[in-house]
């Protein structure tokens, strides 16, 4: 009697297998990303939203750690012959991905081959420009972009007798404001996150100064750094001098300084616009945002700031049909509705003009004052060669060198001039190494 039972079981198993078969016909698109926590949930929502619109493809998002871990994982997977379809790569990895000819499929090519409508002009020029080749072709799909802004403690401004709706515009005004807030009992003036990105890279773009030759590296691999100009040295030296009376306090690498602002110790903070949600969650006071301060005597009025964040790169070598799915997904991802929801929920910039317009129509910026500052600042002027972005090889390591040298300035063991000269010299060595390895 047991034998037939087994047969039934086997038949049942076969039947389940047969029922599952149509689901297998769906093509899976692997998407490796670096968005943890609440951001990771939003990423999963986007994938689920796309999967619900059609049944041919299934986008599977996987979190592989932070930006560097995700990129390293993607490259290691490529080296062992099993890359994901889509890899999220942060902006400083752009040069590395670009030079990997044969490993990546440029987005413009992907869209053309798959017959998806694709207009680079629909994207914010300061976002798209960062990821274009010299001929204006888009190489990767912008996803999450942000730009640094000034956060300030409105309660402290009020207490110090300053206008809480007027953030300081220039660095001199910052110093003036700090004198008053210090008198009102706030010991620390301002602090910064991401010192290389904000105080050197964006400082350059904002003042329309070159970061490197060859249009900040967009024009070729034989670029050299120029961040030891008089204006750069003056700015860094000023920050160092401001440490004496705590007008400026260094809070550590990455965005460790944010804690000093959130705790109410420091009155102002320069940090990514994408940090808005976290400041809002932790700060026990009313705060506002303003554009990055500038030095009027450098000569030019503020230009525009550059972005940070990441884009989606597509690995080559998968079956042609998979790429149709990837292209469809990118079209879905760039639609105004999806973008506007991502922008409003995360604090990242809307990457298309359509999403920006939609957010305006929905009254998002009126309901959330301070969230539009970043956009206004990014689109203040049409980008120049100096403010389009930057493209340097080995830049992850070079940013470490910059951190190291700036810390020597904050610690007082080097002057700004010595540190920036040394940064340029050491940075150029790594640029040459990258140039040689990428031939």
């Amino acid at each position, binding site marked *: 009697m047991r034998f037939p039972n087994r047969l039934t079981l086997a038949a049942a198993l076969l039947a389940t297998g047969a029922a599952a078969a149509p689901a297998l016909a769906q093509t899976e698109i692997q998407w490796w990303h670096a968005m943890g926590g609440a951001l990771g949930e939003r990423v999963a929502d986007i994938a689920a939203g796309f999967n619900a619109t059609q049944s041919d493809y299934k986008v599977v998002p996987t979190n592989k750690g932070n930006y*560097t871990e995700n*990129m*390293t994982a993607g*490259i290691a997977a*490529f*080296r062992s012959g099993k890359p994901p379809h889509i890899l999220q790569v942060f902006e400083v990895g752009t040069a*590395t991905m670009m*030079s*990997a*000819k*044969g*490993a990546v499929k440029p987005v413009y090519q992907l869209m053309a081959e798959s017959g998806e409508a694709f207009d680079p002009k629909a994207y914010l020029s300061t976002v798209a420009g960062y990821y274009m080749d010299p001929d204006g072709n888009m190489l990767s799909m912008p996803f999450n972009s942000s730009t640094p802004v000034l956060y300030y403690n409105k309660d402290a401004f009020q207490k110090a007798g300053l206008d809480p709706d007027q953030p300081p515009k220039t660095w001199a005004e910052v110093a003036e404001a700090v004198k008053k807030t210090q008198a009102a009992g706030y010991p620390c003036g301002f602090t910064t996150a991401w010192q290389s990105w904000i105080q050197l890279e964006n400082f350059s773009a904002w003042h329309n100064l070159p970061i490197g030759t060859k249009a900040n590296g967009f024009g070729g691999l034989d670029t050299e750094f120029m961040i030891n100009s008089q204006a750069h040295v003056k700015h860094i030296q000023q920050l160092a001098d401001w440490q004496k009376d705590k007008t400026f306090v*260094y*809070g*550590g*690498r*990455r965005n*460790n300084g944010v*804690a*000093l602002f959130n*705790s109410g*110790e420091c009155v102002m903070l320069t940090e990514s616009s994408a940090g808005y949600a976290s400041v809002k969650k932790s700060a026990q006071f009313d705060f506002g945002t303003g554009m990055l301060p500038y030095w009027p005597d450098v000569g030019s009025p503020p230009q525009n700031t550059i972005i940070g964040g990441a884009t989606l790169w597509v690995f080559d070598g998968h079956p042609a049909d998979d790429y149709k799915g990837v292209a469809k997904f990118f079209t879905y991802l760039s639609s105004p509705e999806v973008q506007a929801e991502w922008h409003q929920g995360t604090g990242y910039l809307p990457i298309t003009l359509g999403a920006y317009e939609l957010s305006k129509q929905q009254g998002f910026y009126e309901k959330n004052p301070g969230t539009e500052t970043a956009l206004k600042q990014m689109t203040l002027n049409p980008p120049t060669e100096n403010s389009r972005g930057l493209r340097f090889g*080995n830049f*992850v*390591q070079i940013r*470490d060198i910059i*951190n*190291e*040298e700036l*810390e*020597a300035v*904050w*610690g007082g*063991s*080097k002057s700004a001039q010595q540190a920036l000269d040394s940064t340029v010299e*050491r940075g150029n*060595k*790594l640029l040459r*190494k990258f140039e*040689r*390895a*990428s*031939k």
Partner: protein
Amino acid sequence: MEKRVVFNHRVLPYLLLAPQIVITLVFFIWPAVQALKQSVLLEDAFGLSSEFVWLDNFADLFGDPFYMASLWTTAVFSVSVALLALSAALYLAVQADRVVRGAMAYKTLLIWPYAVAPAVAGVLWLLLFSPALGLLPHLLRDVGYEWNHNVKGGQAMVLVVIAASWKQISYNFLFFLAGLQAIPRSLIEAAAIDGAGPARRFWTIVFPLLTPTTFFLLVINVVYAFFDTFGIIHSVTQGGPAGATNILVYKVFSDGFIGLDLGGSAAQSVVLMGIVIALTVVQFRYVERRVHY
């Protein structure tokens, strides 16, 4: 009658050794050979182009004053960690050995930190010492001492040494305690009857009899400080400020896994490998002579 057991089998010894040899080959020898090979190549991250560059990667390293500074930093860090972890563990073990009541509870508590992952240990100490949020900087400020390891290199070094030692103390403690308990009571009692005080008994009897344990732990601790501490550095200082805590193994990690500079990173691991081999040889040839078994 022959009582000795004789194994005449020729193959059996090799078979018995094989698993160990395979593990050594796969996990130690093969990666070491790979590192040697990679260290003379200049390769892009994707492995699409690769160029044989002789010893250029090494020349770059030794021509770089920051790498030489990193060597010195590593020496300071390793010696401090080994000394602190060994002396603190020895002190605790001697005390725990004396305790009669509640000995088990003390021992268990002292062993706990060993189960904490290096990165987590780093984060714990980082929170305690965080200039913005930490408890200790606030207490120190009250007595007029400014703690900010984000700017002050010396303080950053102290912090990572404490974090790295704290984690290793448990391990050392276990071995010291076992060593202490293996010392015959009769020797110590005899010395006590002869009128030797606790300090004298420790230095003339206990410590010499502990030298095999101490020597073993010295080797283990130096290797630990050289290789296993990058998780702590990564979570606490990322090598900063201004390279003050940039030890060799952290540079290998950050150049290789973050910077994707495979050749440069491999050259550094080869140098590191050389240093640890040399240190171990020195320890076995010179320090071991002073060990009483």
